[in-house]
């Protein structure tokens, strides 16, 4: 991976050993004011998390005080969440939807991205522009007619009915990210495969795909996060706990009126589904960074 991405600006970010000279100069001689900024940025990023956890550990009357540390911390909210069958169903739904959508999107997108990155093709620029423009479509413009179509053909309120439209938004993201990863793979490797008589498709399967595994993993993470996060399609196209994914379940946790909104329980549910994502960031941050900026700036 490191040799393949040496020219990428993001690789300089990911592997410090390759950082240009400029940034090694003056290491740890930061102006005190800069440290203030560093601390402020960290506080802005982290304090809201702390407050969410803090809220999730409170119940009853303590929910209406502003204690920095809960004086009677309780895990009761977490128990309530885990005993809630609708939340567990939502977790299951989200996992199924995200895994299936990501897998299917990756398979189709890797074909398309290879053609766009490597093969001669008519109207390539137009196709890329079209694909990119789909990422800017407001989901409501798809969700509204899908709501009518799905109700007529019986896909309304089903997992499949959610996976199909989510795939439409996952595909362009995956194609765009993968295309820039494929472009980085040195052409010489394919050329030597051609010399051995390989067809472009064989070169793709035997040479490019194995080399692109890190890029595929990165794309998978980004697509997974975006599918997991998606809300508008999910809330428009589902109605029952059997097909609702997590974001919708949490949004409707609020109970019957806005006055008895169980903020402690909602916070606990939020913490529960945030923990895996935080772990994902901690483990895969280099990949996430390189994927988010892939193709953004030509390196």
């Amino acid at each position, binding site marked *: 991976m490191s040799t393949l991405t040496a020219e990428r600006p993001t690789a300089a*970010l990911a592997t410090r050993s390759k950082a240009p000279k400029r940034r090694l100069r003056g290491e740890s001689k930061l102006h005190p004011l800069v440290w203030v900024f560093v601390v402020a940025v960290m506080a802005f990023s982290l304090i809201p998390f702390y407050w969410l956890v803090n809220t999730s550990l409170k119940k009853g009357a303590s929910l209406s005080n502003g204690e920095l540390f809960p004086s009677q911390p309780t895990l009761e909210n977490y128990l309530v969440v885990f005993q809630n069958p609708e939340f567990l169903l939502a977790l299951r739904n989200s996992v199924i939807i995200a895994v299936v959508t990501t897998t299917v999107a990756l398979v189709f997108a890797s074909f398309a991205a290879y053609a766009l990155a490597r093969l001669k093709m008519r109207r390539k620029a137009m196709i890329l522009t079209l694909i990119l423009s789909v990422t800017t479509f407001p989901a409501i413009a798809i969700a509204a007619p899908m709501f009518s179509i799905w109700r007529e053909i019986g896909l309304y309120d089903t997992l499949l009915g959610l996976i199909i439209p989510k795939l439409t938004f996952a595909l362009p993201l995956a194609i765009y990210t993968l295309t820039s990863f494929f472009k980085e793979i040195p052409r010489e490797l394919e050329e030597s495969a051609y010399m051995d008589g390989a067809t472009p498709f064989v070169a793709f399967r035997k040479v490019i795909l194995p080399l692109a595994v890190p890029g595929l993993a990165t794309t998978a993470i980004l697509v997974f996060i975006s599918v997991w996060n998606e809300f508008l399609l999910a809330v428009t196209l589902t109605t029952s706990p059997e097909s609702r994914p997590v974001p919708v379940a949490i949004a409707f946790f609020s109970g019957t009126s806005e006055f008895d909104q169980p903020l402690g329980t909602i916070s606990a549910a939020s913490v529960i589904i945030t923990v895996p994502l935080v772990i994902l960031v901690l483990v895969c941050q280099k990949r996430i960074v390189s994927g988010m900026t892939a193709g953004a700036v030509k390196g």
Partner: protein
Amino acid sequence: MATKTMAPSRVSGRDRAERRLALRMTAPSLVIMALVAAVPIGYAIWLSLNQYSVRTAGLSRFVGLENYITALSSSEWWAAFGQTFLFAGLSVSLELVLGTAMALLLNLAFKGRAVLRTVVLLPYAIITVVSAITWQTMFQPNMGLVTNVLSTLGLPGGDVVWLGEHGYAMAVIVMADVWKTTPFAALIILAGLQVISAETYEAAELDGASKWQTFVNITLPLLRPAIVLAAIFRTMDALRVFDLPFVLTRGANGTESMSMLAYTQLRENRLVGEGSALSILTFLTVMVVSVIYVRFAGGNIRDVAKEEQ
């Protein structure tokens, strides 16, 4: 057969095979996107030209542009339109300023940079619904951190029900968006920062430019393509805002967005025709803005497209 004439025809034969393969490899993705994006939007246009009976399912009549006229002459649409642009303007400008500052910090070499990078990235992975709930806990009357700090310091806002008042509710929504998406802007800008060569800075240093002069006259102009790119991505996203007002206010107190209004008419009020018209209007608005962006500011996007040709 002379080899001279053989060579070009073999190449063009390979060319043709390659183009065919390229088409076959992109076709599945393009077909899925066409079926699940273009077809529904086409159907939405049809739905928006009809009026549907609320009582009898399936009963409808063609009304032409009537739904659009109703929508465009309603105060709700223009309120949602204005609120969406207010939200996008506020959140995107804050994200670009904060994102540039974060990118500059992340580009410095200091002990703890890796920690800073990880910490900054965390809110990005949080789902938007949770970001909304997080900021709700921060601004909750009596128990919120922000409200408590404000009232302890005797500042205004401590005793305000933030989500229950015009202006304040919008502020919470903007905060929740800035918190979650500034990392994205920061990383795009950081990638732009890292391709500025060290020599450029050294030349400026030799000319005796101050740090501020260097930033304004060298860094910012060279960063412009990255900042514009971040602005485009963020604006397109902000104009579609839905999750945050849905969770925080259900669109009350001056926070209803275009997408929310269309959703409410469609699903809660069962007005299929008008809801479809509103979603098409939202779609057109976003498309017009993206065309304006690419036309006037997106030189780098056009360059990328040209390079592909």
